[in-house]
């Protein structure tokens, strides 16, 4: 089931990248299973009532993955899929970074390093309210080079915000290439643990494992949880997977046909996540 949702979302992402403006393809494709799992199985949300006061919160801190979020929101029924056709056209609400005018988008993000501080704020508010609302923040791995992420990580650990969950889309790549060759993040799990977080590691393209990990929040009472999801940048398009050049792509008509064909063959493609 979940595979169908993911494939539909990927088709929508690819279609947006075939717009003359192109789009952030690689980092949108890498987090599809993460977002589909959240919106299908984890988040307490109602697509018909996107502002319901008791909803869970999802913040896409790696805001350049907006087309991935739009695709999953559309697929989940927050708005008609057809609306996505306006992406890349003048005055479209589907901006290249998340626009809160789009049903289901909580906050505008995209300057990296803003999502986790916001998430700490949502989590503190929920605690003051006595609410069991949870807040999930999806971060890029390159984004973890921003210092504000660690200010927030420290605050969340100190405050013991166990309903705050960070999910790192650990695709291992940033614009210039390997994160470890640019500004290394490892040992990433140890870093989060030392900030007071419980660390889970999972294959970010395995819906069942993602679901199992995310269904147990709060995972450790009194501690925030980070899920390090090992993923592949550009996942679903074998000829571009795991390559930094998948970061921003403008697909020609021919390129779009090729991408769609690759997604159709998707279940036969085997890829390995970086360990």
């Amino acid at each position: 089931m979940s595979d169908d949702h993911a494939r539909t979302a990927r088709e929508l992402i690819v279609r947006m990248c075939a717009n003359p403006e192109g789009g952030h393809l690689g980092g949108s494709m890498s987090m599809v299973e993460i977002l589909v799992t959240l919106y299908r199985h984890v988040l307490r949300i109602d697509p018909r009532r996107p502002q319901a006061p008791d909803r869970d919160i999802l913040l896409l801190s790696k805001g350049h993955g907006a087309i991935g979020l739009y695709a999953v929101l559309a697929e989940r029924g927050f708005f008609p899929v057809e609306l996505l056709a306006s992406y890349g056209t003048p005055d479209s609400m589907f901006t290249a970074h998340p626009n809160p005018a789009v049903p289901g988008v909580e906050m505008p993000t995209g300057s990296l390093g803003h999502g986790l501080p916001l998430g700490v704020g949502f989590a503190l508010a929920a605690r003051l309210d006595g609410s069991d609302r949870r807040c999930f923040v999806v971060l890029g791995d390159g984004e973890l080079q921003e210092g504000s992420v660690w200010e927030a990580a420290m605050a969340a650990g100190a405050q013991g915000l166990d309903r705050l969950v960070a999910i790192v889309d650990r695709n291992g790549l940033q614009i210039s290439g390997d994160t470890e060759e640019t500004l290394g993040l490892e040992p990433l799990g140890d870093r989060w643990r030392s900030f007071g977080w419980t660390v889970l590691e999972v294959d970010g393209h395995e819906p069942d494992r993602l679901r199992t990990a995310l269904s147990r929040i709060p995972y450790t009472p009194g501690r925030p949880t980070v899920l390090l999801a090992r993923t592949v940048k550009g996942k679903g398009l074998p000829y571009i997977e795991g390559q930094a050049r998948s970061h921003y792509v403008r697909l020609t008509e021919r390129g779009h046909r090729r991408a769609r064909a690759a997604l159709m063959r998707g279940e036969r493609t085997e890829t390995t996540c970086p360990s």
Partner: protein
Amino acid sequence: MSVVTAEPPVPDEARAAREVYRDVLVELLGEDERYVCLDSDTGLFSATSWGEGARRYLNLGIAEQNLMGVAAGLARSGRIPFVNTMATFAATRALEAVKLDIAWNDLPVRIVATHGGLSAGHLGSTHHALEDLAVMRMLPNMTVLVPADGPATESLVRAGAERPGPVYLRLGRGATPSLAPGAEPLRIGVAQSLRRGSDVTLIATGPHPVLTAVETAEELARDGIDVAVLNMHTVKPLDREAIVAAATGTRGIVTVEEHWAAGGLGSAVAEVVADLGAACPVRRVAVADRFAAGTGGHRHLLARNGISGATVTEHVRRLLA
């Protein structure tokens, strides 16, 4: 120029605006559950008894970017956070979070910034804030308030607390005298007239600039020069009517502020006059385009950088020459 080696005494009734603010904030947190106090280890609240509001005081440590983002998340969840830091850290270090997380979303966060202008004195340029009014007033949705004394602080904190959207409140550090005892509570966006006059209008913001303007106007009156004084406690939204009246009703405007000359109150006033097309000269008393000259206490630095009655007097006399 003689060197001032010690700060002159201030009158007994003088109180530091930040202490007035703190006391009002304790009352506000006790009155309304929506209010939250977010501290960045300023020390201002070390001895504070919060009573009812104790759960809603959070010291988030020395991390101003996170501070602003957390405030936005709380505000988006229905709370009204008072965020506490020094003016320069709010306006520069944490600016992107203020711009994107707070201002863009038009969230009711109250950024209370102490050590405005040169009030950090001998702590030096790391702690002076000579850019904050320019930075904050250029942000869409932001209200920018600068109380000039204790009573003004109380009325602007209360008015700012209830205002929609984000508010930046600039406070100083030390005690300053009450300027208009018994005055009506200030209204956001409405300049306070402290003196009527027909020759030149002084428009000032902040404790020392307003005090300087009032004292200088009294001195000039003894020479038969009739100078009006406006306390422009709201830098944004600016009281355009008051500025238009000054531009059309007097022969010139002199602005006084503890801020760099670029972008602050003087620039804001000049923009209004330019838009009006009035043939009214505007002279700015502000810190020149350099990091503050000299070292030492607040009052010394004000004098050393020309934020003084002598500078104001010189401008007024030239305008009337």
